[in-house]
């Protein structure tokens, strides 16, 4: 059976099991839109996948059922038990077809016209059920004739299990299952008619489970053979096994030094068991490389058609297994390379014939194990690389001079194709040459500690050889010592070890104090690890003699194209190590990529060769480094915008988040102590009354348990927002992806991989304390000029308001800077910062908004003409006049979100017009 079908079966069986449960729930809560949505999505997924796999019968069933679900969802049809039965019926039919598909590898013959007619009737509103009488639908929702169901469930001539295309073993097992299924079905045949007889009475629910039972015995054999396990569970298992391996190594080491003793035999046994266990656990992470190749035949086929070439793809070693993490990472590079071979390597049939080759070109894809590595070869018998063309291009690009190229071997020249922006394709086809170059391929492979090599002969073809480690979890590392401390260097980066000395033939020489070494006609730049790590210059006692002779160990290391030597005091063995991430506090140290525990139990730091190269001044490492650095810079820039968020749920199940800084306290409010004043809820809190709000109208209050409440407060005023449950506090970047028009929400963001609503505290405050806000006439204003990121300076002494307003303004598309008082703000001016608009509070302890605006307007500074908006909670006519006279452009009431935003855009537009006039 096709792998895709097997995967589809596993997945669909899971989805169906989920639907079963959810449908029963739906019947009980017909108005649960979440539940409806989720069932609808599951059905939709099944439909989509069936269509993709070319399973028309399944697709039709799922499609029609989805139609009906769609009507539930848009509310035009009430969920009644009769309809749920109908959906169950469709699901049973889908299950039946799936069962046949699993047994025979194809959909069974037959028609679903009866079912489809019923579904369509409901969908189009032709069924009687949509008349008000609820008892009526029983007739239309009648499950299929019990005999028919039994017929469906009985194996009958299901086809020869050994028929071509049917997976032998699975088919037999499925047949066994069917046999028992038949028995079960036969046993149920007797009771089955009973509910049917009653069916005309309003008891269609009773009939519902029946068809399901008919099919339960047919539980998927495929689904039972595989078990889906969360990757985290496997990762965790892997970590623990790694620990076990380390402990075993430790024990063995003790045993070796102690010699003899009664522990010898059991230790050996433990040794074997642990090895097997390790292998077994590693296997759970392994997947055949064929999974990454499955798309390639199709790609080559399309490519042949498109380019008018004849290409045969030969794949060997599809069953070679490798770590799934590695597999994911090499998938795209491999696809790209095979495509390249077809596009650039293989010639057109006429060309091939002229060159005396067979018209059909061949691409070989081979994978095999070799010494702890996976080797993947991509070989074609095409025209090979055009050395002259690469030379020409290299000169054009200024990568190398003609003289340099003349001294190079063909192979060295060929390696240029891995350089960034180096494409020799004369014309860009739709297939390749679209930006993703061989440089990206190389970067991706090197990222997982692999290497790529190339051999090409003009006119005969090219071979790419990729060598990648089996797994990323365990790496081989060279243990070295510097100033009495040991460090691990990943073996993959180590090219060779050289013994240098202070004098004599293998001399380390110095240029202006910088050590270099002559290594086979090349000058090798050297770094002293002890200096790099700023370790004391002490020399271990037992090494005094060695150092007196002036011998120094040089670890020749290669990062991308950059080869350099690391000087260390001593070199020990290589050891297999399990890389553990650094503690957060140490992650900023670029020289280390992780740490690990050695066999003797000591902790050791793992050097990051790329970090060492970077620290020693080699900026351009592997070409892609600049991009990486840029990405990192961006990362750090965003790091600054990390916000602590309080996660909670309320009302619907969707997680909600609020910036933690806005929350003053978390309280449990005893629901019995809540007092009502008019339609408001109040609670006595810290000697005063605090207004309480439910998060949403439909939120259910706890009756026995106290209600978790978020308390927001500013100065003397507090309000409580009652929620259903407080989940956690996390630190994340608020990256609002969907802005919200709903009151009370700023928008949605992805937090912990879940869509999370960011709530707008302001709108709740507004509801709780109407008197906090004084409306100024709202002017309609278009926000077209907000598209450009405008810089806003927000000056307010209250951290609450700053925290409140800055996300709000960010969401509206402004670039926000905050200052806690005018003095800070003026410091920003001195630093030369410029803003498009300044928003300032009026009442601030150090300096009032009036003084601030006066200073800004009087000073001959960059801000003199910057519009300033006053933000205030008390604004009498006099106040406004005074502020305007001093230089404020506008006045806005605190927390009047809409007016603030309109005012800002209006002010900015005016400013722009003024600039135009000027």
């Amino acid at each position, binding site marked *: 059976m096709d792998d895709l079908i097997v995967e589809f079966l596993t997945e669909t069986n899971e989805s169906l099991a989920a639907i079963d449960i959810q449908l029963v729930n739906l019947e009980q809560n017909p108005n649960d839109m979440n539940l409806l949505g989720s069932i609808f999505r599951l059905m939709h997924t099944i439909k989509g996948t069936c269509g993709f796999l070319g399973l028309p019968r399944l697709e039709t069933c799922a499609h029609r059922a989805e139609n009906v679900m769609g009507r539930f969802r848009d509310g035009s049809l009430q969920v009644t038990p009769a309809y749920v039965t109908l959906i169950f019926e469709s699901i049973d039919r889908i299950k039946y077809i799936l069962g046949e598909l699993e047994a025979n590898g194809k959909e069974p013959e037959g028609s679903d016209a009866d079912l489809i007619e019923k579904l369509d009737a409901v969908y189009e509103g032709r069924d009687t059920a949509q008349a008000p009488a609820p008892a009526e639908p029983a007739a239309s929702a009648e499950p299929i004739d019990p005999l028919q169901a039994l017929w469906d469930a009985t194996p009958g001539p299901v086809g020869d299990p050994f028929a071509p295309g049917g997976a032998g073993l699975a088919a037999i097992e499925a047949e066994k299952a069917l046999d028992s299924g038949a028995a079960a079905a036969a046993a149920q045949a007797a009771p089955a008619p009973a509910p049917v007889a009653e069916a005309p009475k309003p008891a269609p629910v009773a009939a519902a489970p029946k068809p399901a039972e008919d099919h339960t015995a047919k539980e998927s054999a495929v689904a039972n053979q595989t078990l889906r396990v969360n990757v985290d569970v496997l990762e965790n298992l892997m970590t623990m096994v790694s620990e076990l391996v380390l402990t075993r190594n430790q024990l063995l080491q003790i045993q070796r030094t102690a010699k003899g003793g009664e522990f010898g035999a059991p230790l050996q046994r433990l040794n074997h068991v642990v090895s097997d266990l390790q292998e077994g656990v590693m296997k759970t992470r392994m997947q055949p490389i064929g999974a990454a190749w499955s798309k390639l035949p199709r790609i080559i086929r399309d490519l042949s058609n498109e380019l008018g070439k004849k290409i045969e793809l030969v794949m060997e070693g599809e069953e070679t297994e490798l770590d799934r993490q590695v597999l994911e990472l090499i998938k795209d590079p491999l696809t790209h390379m095979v495509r390249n071979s077809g596009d650039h390597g293989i010639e057109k049939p006429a060309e091939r014939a002229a060159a005396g080759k067979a018209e059909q070109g061949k691409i070989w894809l081979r994978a095999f194990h070799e010494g702890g590595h996976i080797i993947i070869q991509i070989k074609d018998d095409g025209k090979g690389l055009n050395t002259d063309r690469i030379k020409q291009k290299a000169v054009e690009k200024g990568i190398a001079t003609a003289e340099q190229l003349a001294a190079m071997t063909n192979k060295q020249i060929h390696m240029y194709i891995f350089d960034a922006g180096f494409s020799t394709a004369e014309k860009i086809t739709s297939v390749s040459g679209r930006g993703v170059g061989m440089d990206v391929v190389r970067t991706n492979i090197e990222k997982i500690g692999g290497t790529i090599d190339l051999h090409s002969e003009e006119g005969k073809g090219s071979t790419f050889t990729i060598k990648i480690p089996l797994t990323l979890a365990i790496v081989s590392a060279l243990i070295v010592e510097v100033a009495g401390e040991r460090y691990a260097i990943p073996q993959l980066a180590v090219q060779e070890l050289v013994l240098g000395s202070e004098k004599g033939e293998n001399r380390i020489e110095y240029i202006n104090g910088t050590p270099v070494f002559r290594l086979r006609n090349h000058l090798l730049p050297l770094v002293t690890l002890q200096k790099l790590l700023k370790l004391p210059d002490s020399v271990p006692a037992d090494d005094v003699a060695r150092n007196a002779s002036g011998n120094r160990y040089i670890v020749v290391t290669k990062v991308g194209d950059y080869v350099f030597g690391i000087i260390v005091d001593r070199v020990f063995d290589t050891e297999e190590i399990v890389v553990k991430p650094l*503690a957060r*506090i*140490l992650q900023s140290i670029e020289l280390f990529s992780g740490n690990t525990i050695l066999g003797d139990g000591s902790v050791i730091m793992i050097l990051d060769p790329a970090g060492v190269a970077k620290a020693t001044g080699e900026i351009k490492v592997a070409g892609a480094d600049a991009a990486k650095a840029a990405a990192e810079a961006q990362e750090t820039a965003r790091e600054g915008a990390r916000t602590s968020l309080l996660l909670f749920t309320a009302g619907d199940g969707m997680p909600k988040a609020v910036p933690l800084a806005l929350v003053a306290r978390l309280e449990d409010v005893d629901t019995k102590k809540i007092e009502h004043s008019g339609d408001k809820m109040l609670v006595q809190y810290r000697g005063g009354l605090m207004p309480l709000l439910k998060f949403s109208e439909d939120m259910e209050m706890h009756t026995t348990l106290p209600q978790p409440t978020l308390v927001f407060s500013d100065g003397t005023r507090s309000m409580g927002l009652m929620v259903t449950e*407080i989940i956690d506090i996390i630190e994340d970047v608020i990256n609002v992806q969907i802005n919200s028009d709903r009151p009370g929400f700023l928008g949605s963001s992805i937090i912990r991989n879940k869509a999370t609503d960011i709530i707008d505290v302001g709108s709740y405050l507004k509801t709780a304390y109407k008197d906090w806000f004084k409306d100024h006439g709202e002017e309609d204003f278009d926000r077209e000029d907000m598209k450009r990121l405008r810089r806003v300076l927000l000056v307010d002494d209250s951290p609450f308001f700053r925290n409140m307003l800055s996300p709000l303004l960010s969401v509206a598309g402004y670039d926000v800077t905050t200052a806690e008082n005018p003095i800070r703000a003026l410091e920003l001016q001195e630093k030369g910062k410029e803003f498009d608009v300044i928003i300032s509070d009026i009442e601030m302890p150090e300096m009032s908004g009036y003084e601030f605006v006066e200073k800004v307007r009087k000073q001959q500074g960059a801000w003199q003409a910057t519009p300033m908006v006053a933000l205030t909670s008390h604004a009498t006519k006099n106040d406004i006049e005074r502020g305007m006279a001093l230089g404020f452009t506008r006045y806005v009431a605190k927390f009047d979100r809409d007016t603030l935003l309109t005012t800002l855009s209006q002010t900015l537009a005016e400013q722009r017009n003024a600039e135009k006039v000027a």
Partner: protein
Amino acid sequence: MSLTGEVTKFQKRRAGEVDEGPQTTEYLSITIGNQMFGIPVMQVQDVLRQQNVTRVPLSPPEVAGALNLRGRIVTAINVRCRLGMEDLPAGSKTMAVVVEHEGELYSLIIDRVGDVLSLPNRSFESVPPTLDGVWREIATGIYRLDSQLLVIADISRLLRHSMH
């Protein structure tokens, strides 16, 4: 007041793990120099004698190194350094308290570990505003014990500074 702590308390309360009787919290008393500190005993995973640590070059000054605790790598923090106090003379015996912070283990190197004290929740004094910056940052309250003053230290704040 630590909101993170509040949330944990919250979840416990909601899960029905309500503390019955008088509201008290247990603190492990530790001594650094002449000062006694209290850290919530629930946060303490382990108490260690002096351990060999692997130095981590280029790390922040308060990081004493890394050590292996039953297969997990623990970062050792020199609390004296963190609090801006002089190091003990070389050769002095120290102890360490292992705490978990944001999923990672830290070993806080201190002078001595004392008793576990059960203290009523509502009777601690606020931190004098005149205290030195770092101390004020990490202290959440002061208890007046009969013989001396006990500073309640907030572990997450103690470590957060190091994270920048």
